[in-house]
């Protein structure tokens, strides 16, 4: 009875552990895939997206601009020329091409509280909407360009562009509301909080972590300035006007949730810009594949030859076991040490510089033991009777090795190569010191380069976008899967 019980306990334990493993794997993988594909960000802004006022104009942006929503203040700065590139707006590193319908100039001037002379001259190309729609080649150029913004009349129906929503409601408050109180200050509001505020469900500012003041909804900005604890939702245009008129009012910052598609085809298919801060990763994917390919080309023959020697030729003895211990040691050495070695030997001593070839040689040495050990096992497990059969037919040792031993061991050797590819693809530390960091396509063995795993590292280190890091990570995972399955398919064909 006791044995049965302990069996059952052991089984339950094993089952729950395996389920746990699968759960952890699935969780991590699905999070990586989710973060790679989608990005959810909270941005603090002066406007809330709770209410949008009706505007007599419409804003369009080109499909690749990533802009489908703008707030009043950003739009104002764009028209003013204070924001001249989309990099701060949507992480697209392109100067904005802005087109404004001339019939809207007057309205925009009062809406944005800007003198017409303040409209930035260099960027603002003022065309009539009619012209723009009829000028097919110009429209086409704008459509292709990553940072076009068109402000035209309502319902002008320009096809092939994003329609951009403008958020322009500000929660204006009396300055007391934002004062430091009991070492606390009112924080950024969430959209639900804005909603409750406007619907009068919040009675006291302390509910929003603010001072102990009653919430008072008022109807004019003058009251907001005068009455302690007063607030008023107001169109940004009017708020801006009041600020310009030196009214003593302030606004509450509101969290804006941006959820966009992260990994886009465009990101995959365009070259990196500005040292990887912007643009895509096509060049980096290419460099990664080149690096891995060269590494395998160099490391495989050396390590398979080594494995053949160890199994078929080396006499059992101290030297052989020393070599084997050395190989095992090499397999366990952290990759940063290989990087250091590569830096001293290939980069400096041999004068190869921070280049593709330095990186490739370093990683080759690093993956040698992986391929060698698995190949050795595979070659050792080839049945001696096959070798006898071949030798019995009069084949020489070398003929037997090439015609019988290696083909029979090919599955094991391929496994070693797959493991090595996985290691090379994910290698970062050994490459930081050796391969350089250029984001452009490699032009030769001596050109500096950057691979995906290292790119992820550099993005984070250089304070780049986390979203880009996750997108690159997803690409890397897919690449590993792809390489593995391709190798498996090739292997299966060989065996048939």
């Amino acid at each position: 009875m006791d044995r049965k019980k302990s069996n059952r306990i052991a089984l339950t334990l094993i089952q729950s552990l395996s389920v746990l493993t699968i759960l952890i794997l699935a969780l991590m993988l699905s999070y990586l895939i989710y973060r790679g594909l989608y990005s959810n960000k909270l941005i603090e802004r002066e406007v809330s997206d709770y209410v949008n006022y009706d505007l007599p104009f419409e804003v369009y942006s080109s499909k690749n601009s990533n802009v489908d929503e703008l707030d009043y203040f950003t739009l104002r700065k764009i028209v003013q020329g204070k924001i001249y590139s989309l990099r701060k707006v949507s992480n697209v590193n392109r100067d904005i091409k802005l087109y404004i319908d001339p019939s809207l100039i007057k309205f925009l001037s009062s809406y944005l509280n800007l003198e017409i002379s303040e409209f930035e001259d260099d960027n603002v190309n003022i065309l009539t909407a009619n012209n723009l729609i009829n000028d097919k080649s110009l429209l086409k150029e704008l459509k292709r360009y990553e940072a076009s913004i068109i402000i035209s009349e309502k319902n002008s129906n320009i096809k092939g562009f994003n329609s951009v929503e403008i958020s322009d409601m500000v929660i204006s408050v009396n300055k007391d509301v934002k004062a430091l109180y009991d070492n606390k200050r009112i924080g950024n509001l969430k959209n639900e909080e804005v909603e409750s505020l406007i619907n009068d469900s919040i009675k006291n500012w302390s509910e929003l972590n603010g001072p102990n003041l009653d919430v008072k909804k008022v109807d004019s900005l003058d009251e907001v300035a005068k009455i302690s604890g007063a607030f008023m939702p107001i169109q940004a245009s009017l708020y801006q006007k009041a600020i310009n008129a030196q009214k003593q009012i302030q606004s509450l910052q509101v969290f804006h949730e941006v959820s966009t598609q992260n990994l886009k085809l465009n990101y995959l298919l365009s070259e990196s810009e500005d040292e990887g801060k912007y643009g895509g990763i096509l060049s980096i994917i290419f460099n990664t594949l080149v690096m891995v390919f060269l590494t395998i080309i160099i490391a495989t023959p050396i390590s398979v030859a080594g494995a053949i020697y160890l199994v078929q030729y080396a006499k059992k003895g101290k030297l052989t076991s020393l070599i084997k211990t050395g190989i095992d040691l090499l397999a366990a050495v952290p990759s940063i040490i290989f990087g250091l070695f590569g830096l001293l030997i290939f980069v400096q001593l041999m004068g190869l510089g921070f280049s593709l070839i330095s990186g490739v040689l370093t990683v080759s040495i690093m993956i040698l033991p992986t391929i060698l050990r698995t190949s050795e096992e595979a070659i050792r497990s080839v049945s001696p009777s096959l070798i006898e059969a071949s030798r019995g037919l009069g084949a020489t040792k070398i003929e037997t090795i090439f015609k019988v031993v290696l083909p029979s061991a090919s599955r094991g050797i391929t496994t070693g190569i797959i493991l090595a590819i996985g290691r090379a693809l994910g290698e970062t530390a050994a490459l930081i010191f050796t391969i350089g960091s250029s984001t452009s396509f490699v032009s030769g063995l001596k050109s500096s380069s950057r691979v995906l795993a290292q790119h992820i590292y550099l993005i984070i280190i250089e304070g780049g976008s986390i979203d880009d890091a996750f997108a690159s990570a997803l690409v890397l995972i897919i690449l590993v899967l792809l390489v593995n399955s391709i190798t498996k398919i090739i292997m299966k064909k060989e065996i048939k």
Partner: protein
Amino acid sequence: MNESLFKVNDLDLWYGDHQALNKINMEIEKNSITAFIGPSGCGKSTFLRVLDRMNDLIDSVTIKGNVFFEGKNIYNDMDILELRRRVGMVFQKPNPFPMTIFDNISYGPKLYKKYKKSELYDVVEKSLKQAALWEEVKDRLHTSALGLSGGQQQRLCLARTLAVNPDVILMDEPTSALDPISTTKIEELMIELKKEYTIIIVTHNMQQASRVSEATSFFLIDDNRRGYLVESGETSEIFLNPKDKRTEDYISGKFG
């Protein structure tokens, strides 16, 4: 009496320090079947492997004495690869290469000569027919040899040996891993092949030795665990009228 093909004089063999064969003298006739019998570990397989120098694959083996094949000393006067082509071997366990049936058979011939595809096909067909396997596999020459049954695999190994056109076929307990029906097939084949080839077979199966062989050699192991030849002669003589008491005891099942 046929001419003798192998002539072995005072052969000693060591595995490292251990002597495994002691003073073997033997003659083997052409176009006959010779059976080696004896209890396990008596060195008959080792001796068989001397005849095509397969023991050379093991580093620790040393040999003293002479083995003549057609009058030439195989350790001095003959190219080892030529010897192995002319003296083929079929092993205890079927050991087809993990390749297609066609590639298995053509493996040997391709080592010696560049063949055109049609010539190679002829060689494969001829060998498979000799091994009585052709009818069973002709439709699947390009599938893996590992898909065949054990008996078929052993005949494939025989065909593979025949494909390099040897003079002698050494068989190291070729039917010990096979069922009775497959065994019968192999035995029939041996009798058929005797016309063109000299066959030497190691077997634990007394009936097999008496069924197929003309000559039989009986091996035993002495107190120093050295294998030696007790007697050899015509199979009928050995089985019905052994000269040595030990042979009689072994054959009648008193020990072994």
